[in-house]
Protein backbone atom coordinates (compact mmCIF):
# COMPACT_ATOMS: atom_id res chain seq x y z
CA UNK A 1 0.00 0.00 0.00
CA UNK A 2 1.20 3.49 -0.74
CA UNK A 3 2.46 5.12 2.45
CA UNK A 4 0.91 8.36 1.29
CA UNK A 5 -2.60 6.99 1.04
CA UNK A 6 -4.89 6.61 3.96
CA UNK A 7 -8.17 4.85 4.28
CA UNK A 8 -9.87 8.20 4.70
CA UNK A 9 -8.49 9.44 1.41
CA UNK A 10 -9.75 6.41 -0.50
CA UNK A 11 -13.09 6.67 1.26
CA UNK A 12 -13.31 10.33 0.27
CA UNK A 13 -12.61 9.44 -3.36
CA UNK A 14 -15.27 6.72 -3.40
CA UNK A 15 -17.77 8.99 -1.68
CA UNK A 16 -17.06 11.83 -4.10
CA UNK A 17 -17.54 9.59 -7.12
CA UNK A 18 -20.77 8.03 -5.86
CA UNK A 19 -22.25 11.34 -4.78
CA UNK A 20 -21.58 12.88 -8.18
CA UNK A 21 -22.59 9.95 -10.35
CA UNK A 22 -25.59 8.71 -8.39
CA UNK A 23 -26.72 12.18 -7.37
CA UNK A 24 -26.96 11.29 -3.70
CA UNK A 25 -25.92 13.22 -0.61
CA UNK A 26 -22.30 12.42 0.22
CA UNK A 27 -23.13 12.58 3.91
CA UNK A 28 -25.38 9.55 3.47
CA UNK A 29 -22.50 7.36 2.30
CA UNK A 30 -20.48 5.46 4.88
CA UNK A 31 -18.46 2.26 4.88
CA UNK A 32 -21.51 0.11 5.50
CA UNK A 33 -23.51 1.59 2.63
CA UNK A 34 -24.62 -1.13 0.22
CA UNK A 35 -24.44 -0.19 -3.45
CA UNK A 36 -27.58 -1.92 -4.62
CA UNK A 37 -29.81 -1.81 -1.57
CA UNK A 38 -28.93 1.61 -0.17
CA UNK A 39 -27.83 3.60 -3.23
CA UNK A 40 -30.02 1.90 -5.83
CA UNK A 41 -26.90 1.40 -7.92
CA UNK A 42 -26.95 -1.15 -10.72
CA UNK A 43 -24.18 -3.12 -12.39
CA UNK A 44 -23.40 -0.22 -14.70
CA UNK A 45 -22.86 2.11 -11.75
CA UNK A 46 -20.53 -0.42 -10.15
CA UNK A 47 -18.49 -0.78 -13.34
CA UNK A 48 -18.07 2.95 -13.52
CA UNK A 49 -16.86 3.07 -9.93
CA UNK A 50 -14.47 0.20 -10.58
CA UNK A 51 -13.04 1.93 -13.64
CA UNK A 52 -12.67 5.18 -11.73
CA UNK A 53 -10.73 3.36 -9.01
CA UNK A 54 -8.61 1.56 -11.60
CA UNK A 55 -7.70 4.84 -13.27
CA UNK A 56 -7.06 6.68 -10.02
CA UNK A 57 -5.04 4.07 -8.17
CA UNK A 58 -3.47 2.03 -10.96
CA UNK A 59 -5.13 -1.19 -9.83
CA UNK A 60 -6.84 -3.88 -11.87
CA UNK A 61 -10.16 -5.35 -10.78
CA UNK A 62 -11.34 -8.57 -12.43
CA UNK A 63 -14.97 -9.22 -13.29
CA UNK A 64 -15.19 -11.74 -10.46
CA UNK A 65 -13.63 -9.39 -7.93
CA UNK A 66 -15.92 -6.56 -8.99
CA UNK A 67 -18.96 -8.79 -8.58
CA UNK A 68 -17.99 -9.52 -4.96
CA UNK A 69 -17.85 -5.85 -3.94
CA UNK A 70 -21.19 -5.08 -2.31
CA UNK A 71 -20.46 -2.22 0.09
CA UNK A 72 -18.51 0.99 0.06
CA UNK A 73 -16.19 -0.38 2.73
CA UNK A 74 -15.40 -3.42 0.58
CA UNK A 75 -14.45 -1.15 -2.31
CA UNK A 76 -12.11 0.81 -0.06
CA UNK A 77 -10.60 -2.42 1.29
CA UNK A 78 -9.98 -3.65 -2.24
CA UNK A 79 -8.11 -0.49 -3.22
CA UNK A 80 -5.96 -0.52 -0.11
CA UNK A 81 -5.06 -4.19 -0.58
CA UNK A 82 -4.18 -3.90 -4.27
CA UNK A 83 -2.71 -0.48 -4.85
CA UNK A 84 0.90 -0.72 -6.01
CA UNK A 85 3.57 0.30 -3.51
CA UNK A 86 5.03 3.75 -4.01
Amino acid at each position, binding site marked *: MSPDMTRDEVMAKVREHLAAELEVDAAEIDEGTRFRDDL*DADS*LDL*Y*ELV*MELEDTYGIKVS*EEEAARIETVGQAVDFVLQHVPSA
Partner: protein
Amino acid sequence: MSPEVGAPTVAVDAFGADGGFEVIAAGARAAASDGLGVRVFGPPGELSDLGRGIELRPATDSISNDDEPVRAVRSRPDASIVLAARDVAEGRSQALVSAGSTGAAMTAALFALRRLHGVHRPALAVQLPVPSRDRPVLFLDAGANTEARPRHLVQFAYLGAAFAAAVLGIERPRVALLTVGEEQGKGTPLVVEAHDALARAEGIDFAGNVEGRDLPAGAADVIVADGFTGNVALKTMEGTASAFGAAVRDAATSGPRAALGGLLLRPALAGLRARLDPDTTGGAILLGLRGVAVVAHGSSGPNGIANAIRLAARSVRERAIERTAELLERSGATRASLRDADEPNGTGRRDPNA
Protein backbone atom coordinates in the same frame (compact mmCIF):
# COMPACT_ATOMS: atom_id res chain seq x y z
CA MET B 1 -10.09 16.95 -49.74
CA SER B 2 -8.85 18.18 -46.39
CA PRO B 3 -11.35 18.53 -43.55
CA GLU B 4 -13.05 21.92 -43.33
CA VAL B 5 -11.82 24.15 -40.55
CA GLY B 6 -13.98 23.48 -37.49
CA ALA B 7 -15.62 20.41 -39.02
CA PRO B 8 -16.17 17.51 -36.62
CA THR B 9 -13.73 14.62 -36.75
CA VAL B 10 -15.26 11.16 -36.52
CA ALA B 11 -13.44 8.06 -35.24
CA VAL B 12 -14.42 5.03 -37.31
CA ASP B 13 -13.90 1.40 -36.29
CA ALA B 14 -12.81 -0.38 -39.48
CA PHE B 15 -13.65 -3.88 -38.26
CA GLY B 16 -16.92 -5.74 -38.31
CA ALA B 17 -18.74 -4.60 -41.45
CA ASP B 18 -20.13 -7.53 -43.44
CA GLY B 19 -18.66 -6.00 -46.59
CA GLY B 20 -15.17 -5.81 -45.10
CA PHE B 21 -12.63 -3.03 -44.97
CA GLU B 22 -13.37 -1.74 -48.46
CA VAL B 23 -16.89 -0.76 -47.43
CA ILE B 24 -15.50 1.22 -44.51
CA ALA B 25 -12.84 2.84 -46.69
CA ALA B 26 -15.35 3.82 -49.37
CA GLY B 27 -17.78 5.19 -46.78
CA ALA B 28 -15.01 7.15 -45.08
CA ARG B 29 -13.91 8.61 -48.42
CA ALA B 30 -17.46 9.71 -49.20
CA ALA B 31 -17.84 11.39 -45.82
CA ALA B 32 -14.42 13.01 -46.06
CA SER B 33 -15.38 14.43 -49.43
CA ASP B 34 -18.04 16.42 -47.55
CA GLY B 35 -15.26 18.11 -45.60
CA LEU B 36 -15.54 15.98 -42.47
CA GLY B 37 -12.49 14.78 -40.57
CA VAL B 38 -12.25 10.98 -40.36
CA ARG B 39 -9.87 8.84 -38.33
CA VAL B 40 -10.09 5.16 -39.25
CA PHE B 41 -8.98 2.52 -36.74
CA GLY B 42 -7.94 -0.65 -38.53
CA PRO B 43 -5.13 -2.73 -39.98
CA PRO B 44 -2.71 -0.71 -42.15
CA GLY B 45 -2.24 -3.63 -44.52
CA GLU B 46 -5.93 -3.57 -45.43
CA LEU B 47 -6.44 0.19 -45.48
CA SER B 48 -3.47 1.58 -47.33
CA ASP B 49 -5.37 3.72 -49.81
CA LEU B 50 -7.80 5.76 -47.76
CA GLY B 51 -7.29 9.04 -49.52
CA ARG B 52 -6.85 12.63 -48.46
CA GLY B 53 -8.50 13.93 -45.33
CA ILE B 54 -8.60 10.49 -43.71
CA GLU B 55 -6.14 9.51 -41.02
CA LEU B 56 -5.36 5.85 -40.47
CA ARG B 57 -4.80 4.79 -36.87
CA PRO B 58 -3.26 1.33 -36.68
CA ALA B 59 -5.37 -1.31 -34.91
CA THR B 60 -5.09 -5.01 -35.58
CA ASP B 61 -7.21 -6.47 -32.78
CA SER B 62 -10.98 -6.50 -33.03
CA ILE B 63 -13.90 -7.56 -30.84
CA SER B 64 -16.46 -9.73 -32.56
CA ASN B 65 -20.01 -10.82 -31.85
CA ASP B 66 -18.61 -14.01 -30.33
CA ASP B 67 -16.84 -12.10 -27.55
CA GLU B 68 -18.52 -11.16 -24.30
CA PRO B 69 -18.59 -7.36 -24.68
CA VAL B 70 -17.82 -6.16 -21.15
CA ARG B 71 -15.00 -8.60 -20.57
CA ALA B 72 -13.54 -8.01 -24.05
CA VAL B 73 -13.66 -4.23 -23.87
CA ARG B 74 -12.05 -4.15 -20.43
CA SER B 75 -9.33 -6.66 -21.22
CA ARG B 76 -8.34 -5.64 -24.75
CA PRO B 77 -7.31 -1.99 -24.72
CA ASP B 78 -5.81 -2.18 -28.21
CA ALA B 79 -8.95 -3.47 -29.92
CA SER B 80 -10.08 -1.15 -32.70
CA ILE B 81 -13.39 -0.19 -31.09
CA VAL B 82 -11.71 0.51 -27.75
CA LEU B 83 -9.06 2.70 -29.39
CA ALA B 84 -11.68 4.56 -31.43
CA ALA B 85 -13.87 5.19 -28.37
CA ARG B 86 -10.87 6.40 -26.40
CA ASP B 87 -9.98 8.72 -29.27
CA VAL B 88 -13.32 10.45 -28.74
CA ALA B 89 -13.05 10.46 -24.96
CA GLU B 90 -9.63 12.10 -25.16
CA GLY B 91 -10.81 14.75 -27.57
CA ARG B 92 -8.94 13.87 -30.75
CA SER B 93 -12.25 12.98 -32.38
CA GLN B 94 -15.72 14.24 -31.58
CA ALA B 95 -17.83 11.19 -32.44
CA LEU B 96 -17.62 7.41 -32.81
CA VAL B 97 -18.91 5.17 -35.60
CA SER B 98 -18.79 1.38 -35.74
CA ALA B 99 -20.41 -1.25 -37.94
CA GLY B 100 -19.02 -4.06 -35.81
CA SER B 101 -20.45 -5.86 -32.81
CA THR B 102 -23.25 -3.74 -31.38
CA GLY B 103 -22.55 -4.98 -27.87
CA ALA B 104 -18.87 -4.11 -28.12
CA ALA B 105 -19.58 -0.70 -29.62
CA MET B 106 -22.12 0.14 -26.91
CA THR B 107 -19.85 -1.09 -24.14
CA ALA B 108 -16.75 0.67 -25.44
CA ALA B 109 -18.68 3.89 -25.92
CA LEU B 110 -20.29 3.63 -22.52
CA PHE B 111 -17.03 2.99 -20.71
CA ALA B 112 -14.98 5.57 -22.59
CA LEU B 113 -17.51 8.36 -23.03
CA ARG B 114 -19.49 7.72 -19.83
CA ARG B 115 -23.11 8.52 -19.21
CA LEU B 116 -24.39 12.04 -19.08
CA HIS B 117 -24.77 13.24 -15.52
CA GLY B 118 -28.16 12.19 -14.25
CA VAL B 119 -28.79 9.52 -16.89
CA HIS B 120 -29.69 6.07 -15.61
CA ARG B 121 -29.20 4.06 -18.76
CA PRO B 122 -28.22 4.93 -22.29
CA ALA B 123 -30.64 3.82 -25.00
CA LEU B 124 -30.12 2.74 -28.58
CA ALA B 125 -32.25 4.82 -30.94
CA VAL B 126 -33.01 3.98 -34.56
CA GLN B 127 -34.58 6.12 -37.22
CA LEU B 128 -37.42 4.18 -38.79
CA PRO B 129 -38.19 5.21 -42.35
CA VAL B 130 -41.93 5.71 -42.66
CA PRO B 131 -43.57 5.48 -46.09
CA SER B 132 -46.32 7.96 -45.28
CA ARG B 133 -44.15 10.82 -44.02
CA ASP B 134 -41.04 12.60 -45.14
CA ARG B 135 -39.14 12.18 -41.92
CA PRO B 136 -38.34 9.09 -39.90
CA VAL B 137 -39.74 8.02 -36.56
CA LEU B 138 -37.16 7.83 -33.80
CA PHE B 139 -37.60 4.51 -31.99
CA LEU B 140 -35.84 3.66 -28.75
CA ASP B 141 -34.69 1.56 -26.95
CA ALA B 142 -33.78 -0.85 -29.75
CA GLY B 143 -31.95 -3.21 -27.45
CA ALA B 144 -29.42 -1.54 -25.18
CA ASN B 145 -31.33 -2.55 -22.02
CA THR B 146 -33.38 -5.72 -21.96
CA GLU B 147 -34.68 -4.84 -18.52
CA ALA B 148 -36.01 -1.43 -17.63
CA ARG B 149 -37.79 0.43 -14.90
CA PRO B 150 -40.45 3.10 -15.37
CA ARG B 151 -37.96 5.90 -14.73
CA HIS B 152 -35.74 4.49 -17.47
CA LEU B 153 -38.58 4.76 -19.97
CA VAL B 154 -39.27 8.29 -18.78
CA GLN B 155 -35.66 9.24 -19.44
CA PHE B 156 -35.71 7.48 -22.81
CA ALA B 157 -38.60 9.77 -23.73
CA TYR B 158 -36.49 12.83 -22.91
CA LEU B 159 -33.41 11.44 -24.65
CA GLY B 160 -35.43 10.76 -27.79
CA ALA B 161 -37.19 14.10 -27.71
CA ALA B 162 -33.93 15.99 -27.34
CA PHE B 163 -32.30 14.13 -30.23
CA ALA B 164 -35.36 14.52 -32.47
CA ALA B 165 -35.35 18.25 -31.84
CA ALA B 166 -31.60 18.74 -32.17
CA VAL B 167 -30.71 16.44 -35.06
CA LEU B 168 -33.95 15.64 -36.87
CA GLY B 169 -35.15 19.23 -36.69
CA ILE B 170 -38.54 18.47 -35.16
CA GLU B 171 -39.40 21.55 -33.15
CA ARG B 172 -41.64 19.93 -30.53
CA PRO B 173 -41.52 16.18 -31.04
CA ARG B 174 -44.54 14.15 -30.01
CA VAL B 175 -43.46 11.23 -27.86
CA ALA B 176 -45.42 8.01 -27.39
CA LEU B 177 -45.07 4.76 -25.48
CA LEU B 178 -45.27 1.44 -27.31
CA THR B 179 -47.73 -0.95 -25.69
CA VAL B 180 -50.75 -3.12 -26.42
CA GLY B 181 -53.50 -0.52 -26.51
CA GLU B 182 -54.01 3.19 -26.86
CA GLU B 183 -55.94 3.65 -23.63
CA GLN B 184 -54.14 4.66 -20.47
CA GLY B 185 -53.73 1.57 -18.31
CA LYS B 186 -52.95 -0.77 -21.19
CA GLY B 187 -49.79 -2.80 -20.89
CA THR B 188 -47.41 -4.14 -18.29
CA PRO B 189 -46.96 -2.42 -14.91
CA LEU B 190 -43.72 -1.00 -16.35
CA VAL B 191 -45.53 0.75 -19.18
CA VAL B 192 -48.51 1.82 -17.08
CA GLU B 193 -46.27 3.46 -14.50
CA ALA B 194 -44.14 5.10 -17.15
CA HIS B 195 -47.31 6.39 -18.79
CA ASP B 196 -48.49 7.91 -15.51
CA ALA B 197 -45.16 9.65 -15.01
CA LEU B 198 -44.95 10.91 -18.60
CA ALA B 199 -48.52 12.19 -18.47
CA ARG B 200 -47.36 14.59 -15.73
CA ALA B 201 -43.97 15.29 -17.25
CA GLU B 202 -42.81 18.79 -18.03
CA GLY B 203 -40.84 19.89 -21.05
CA ILE B 204 -42.05 17.07 -23.26
CA ASP B 205 -45.05 16.57 -25.56
CA PHE B 206 -46.38 13.19 -24.48
CA ALA B 207 -48.87 11.75 -26.96
CA GLY B 208 -49.85 8.68 -24.95
CA ASN B 209 -49.74 5.07 -26.04
CA VAL B 210 -49.31 3.59 -29.49
CA GLU B 211 -49.53 -0.01 -30.66
CA GLY B 212 -47.12 -2.00 -32.77
CA ARG B 213 -49.05 -1.30 -35.93
CA ASP B 214 -48.55 2.43 -35.33
CA LEU B 215 -44.77 2.17 -35.60
CA PRO B 216 -44.56 2.01 -39.41
CA ALA B 217 -47.50 4.40 -39.61
CA GLY B 218 -45.52 7.18 -37.98
CA ALA B 219 -48.04 7.80 -35.21
CA ALA B 220 -45.54 9.90 -33.24
CA ASP B 221 -42.14 11.47 -33.77
CA VAL B 222 -40.51 9.48 -30.98
CA ILE B 223 -41.69 6.07 -29.80
CA VAL B 224 -40.34 4.58 -26.58
CA ALA B 225 -40.11 0.97 -25.45
CA ASP B 226 -37.93 -1.09 -23.16
CA GLY B 227 -34.99 -2.67 -24.97
CA PHE B 228 -36.44 -6.17 -25.07
CA THR B 229 -39.73 -5.05 -26.59
CA GLY B 230 -37.95 -2.58 -28.84
CA ASN B 231 -35.57 -5.13 -30.24
CA VAL B 232 -38.32 -7.67 -30.88
CA ALA B 233 -40.46 -5.02 -32.58
CA LEU B 234 -37.57 -3.78 -34.70
CA LYS B 235 -36.51 -7.24 -35.86
CA THR B 236 -40.14 -8.15 -36.56
CA MET B 237 -40.52 -5.10 -38.77
CA GLU B 238 -37.25 -5.79 -40.58
CA GLY B 239 -38.22 -9.41 -41.17
CA THR B 240 -41.72 -8.52 -42.30
CA ALA B 241 -40.43 -5.87 -44.70
CA SER B 242 -37.91 -8.29 -46.14
CA ALA B 243 -40.44 -11.11 -46.58
CA PHE B 244 -43.04 -8.75 -48.03
CA GLY B 245 -40.51 -7.30 -50.47
CA ALA B 246 -39.54 -10.78 -51.63
CA ALA B 247 -43.22 -11.70 -52.08
CA VAL B 248 -43.83 -8.55 -54.15
CA ARG B 249 -40.83 -9.35 -56.35
CA ASP B 250 -42.10 -12.91 -56.85
CA ALA B 251 -45.58 -11.66 -57.70
CA ALA B 252 -44.16 -9.09 -60.14
CA THR B 253 -42.41 -11.83 -62.10
CA SER B 254 -45.15 -14.43 -61.94
CA GLY B 255 -46.39 -13.87 -65.48
CA PRO B 256 -46.28 -11.53 -68.48
CA ARG B 257 -49.01 -9.20 -67.23
CA ALA B 258 -47.51 -9.02 -63.75
CA ALA B 259 -44.07 -8.36 -65.27
CA LEU B 260 -45.49 -5.50 -67.34
CA GLY B 261 -47.13 -4.02 -64.25
CA GLY B 262 -43.88 -4.39 -62.32
CA LEU B 263 -42.00 -2.65 -65.11
CA LEU B 264 -44.39 0.29 -65.03
CA LEU B 265 -44.12 0.56 -61.26
CA ARG B 266 -40.36 0.22 -61.15
CA PRO B 267 -39.41 3.94 -61.09
CA ALA B 268 -41.86 4.71 -58.30
CA LEU B 269 -40.81 1.67 -56.32
CA ALA B 270 -37.15 2.53 -56.78
CA GLY B 271 -37.73 5.91 -55.16
CA LEU B 272 -39.65 4.33 -52.30
CA ARG B 273 -36.96 1.71 -51.86
CA ALA B 274 -34.26 4.36 -51.63
CA ARG B 275 -36.28 6.22 -49.02
CA LEU B 276 -36.80 3.08 -46.93
CA ASP B 277 -33.24 1.79 -47.35
CA PRO B 278 -31.63 1.49 -43.88
CA ASP B 279 -28.40 2.86 -45.38
CA THR B 280 -30.18 6.18 -45.83
CA THR B 281 -30.48 6.86 -42.11
CA GLY B 282 -26.92 5.81 -41.30
CA GLY B 283 -27.40 3.75 -38.17
CA ALA B 284 -28.52 3.67 -34.59
CA ILE B 285 -27.30 6.24 -32.11
CA LEU B 286 -26.53 5.59 -28.49
CA LEU B 287 -28.29 8.31 -26.51
CA GLY B 288 -27.50 9.37 -22.96
CA LEU B 289 -23.71 9.50 -23.20
CA ARG B 290 -21.34 12.44 -22.90
CA GLY B 291 -20.30 11.91 -26.49
CA VAL B 292 -21.77 10.87 -29.83
CA ALA B 293 -21.71 7.18 -30.78
CA VAL B 294 -23.36 5.74 -33.89
CA VAL B 295 -23.73 2.02 -34.52
CA ALA B 296 -24.09 1.34 -38.23
CA HIS B 297 -25.81 -1.79 -39.47
CA GLY B 298 -23.33 -4.61 -40.07
CA SER B 299 -24.73 -5.00 -43.57
CA SER B 300 -24.18 -1.33 -44.40
CA GLY B 301 -22.79 -0.49 -47.80
CA PRO B 302 -20.45 2.45 -48.42
CA ASN B 303 -23.42 4.79 -48.46
CA GLY B 304 -24.58 3.49 -45.09
CA ILE B 305 -21.16 4.01 -43.55
CA ALA B 306 -20.90 7.50 -45.04
CA ASN B 307 -24.33 8.37 -43.71
CA ALA B 308 -23.44 7.00 -40.28
CA ILE B 309 -20.41 9.31 -40.23
CA ARG B 310 -22.57 12.21 -41.41
CA LEU B 311 -25.18 11.47 -38.72
CA ALA B 312 -22.44 11.46 -36.10
CA ALA B 313 -21.03 14.73 -37.39
CA ARG B 314 -24.47 16.32 -37.56
CA SER B 315 -25.10 15.31 -33.95
CA VAL B 316 -21.90 17.09 -32.95
CA ARG B 317 -22.68 20.18 -34.99
CA GLU B 318 -26.21 20.41 -33.61
CA ARG B 319 -24.93 20.02 -30.04
CA ALA B 320 -27.15 17.00 -29.45
CA ILE B 321 -25.35 16.04 -26.24
CA GLU B 322 -25.46 19.49 -24.72
CA ARG B 323 -29.09 19.98 -25.69
CA THR B 324 -30.02 16.63 -24.18
CA ALA B 325 -28.33 17.55 -20.91
CA GLU B 326 -30.09 20.90 -20.92
CA LEU B 327 -33.51 19.32 -21.49
CA LEU B 328 -33.02 16.74 -18.75
CA GLU B 329 -31.91 19.39 -16.29
CA ARG B 330 -34.55 21.94 -17.27
CA SER B 331 -37.34 19.38 -17.06
CA GLY B 332 -36.29 17.80 -13.81
CA ALA B 333 -35.71 14.48 -15.54
CA THR B 334 -32.31 13.70 -14.12
CA ARG B 335 -31.62 10.70 -11.98
CA ALA B 336 -32.06 12.47 -8.67
CA SER B 337 -35.33 14.04 -9.76
CA LEU B 338 -36.72 10.77 -11.02
CA ARG B 339 -35.60 8.71 -8.06
CA ASP B 340 -39.14 8.15 -6.93
CA ALA B 341 -40.62 7.88 -10.42
CA ASP B 342 -41.26 4.20 -9.86
CA GLU B 343 -43.82 5.34 -7.31
CA PRO B 344 -47.09 5.96 -9.17
CA ASN B 345 -47.92 9.02 -7.06
CA GLY B 346 -44.68 10.91 -7.18
CA THR B 347 -42.09 11.86 -9.74
CA GLY B 348 -40.20 14.53 -7.84
CA ARG B 349 -40.23 16.53 -11.05
CA ARG B 350 -39.75 20.26 -10.97
CA ASP B 351 -41.40 22.99 -12.91
CA PRO B 352 -39.00 23.56 -15.82
CA ASN B 353 -39.79 27.25 -15.81
CA ALA B 354 -39.03 27.67 -12.13
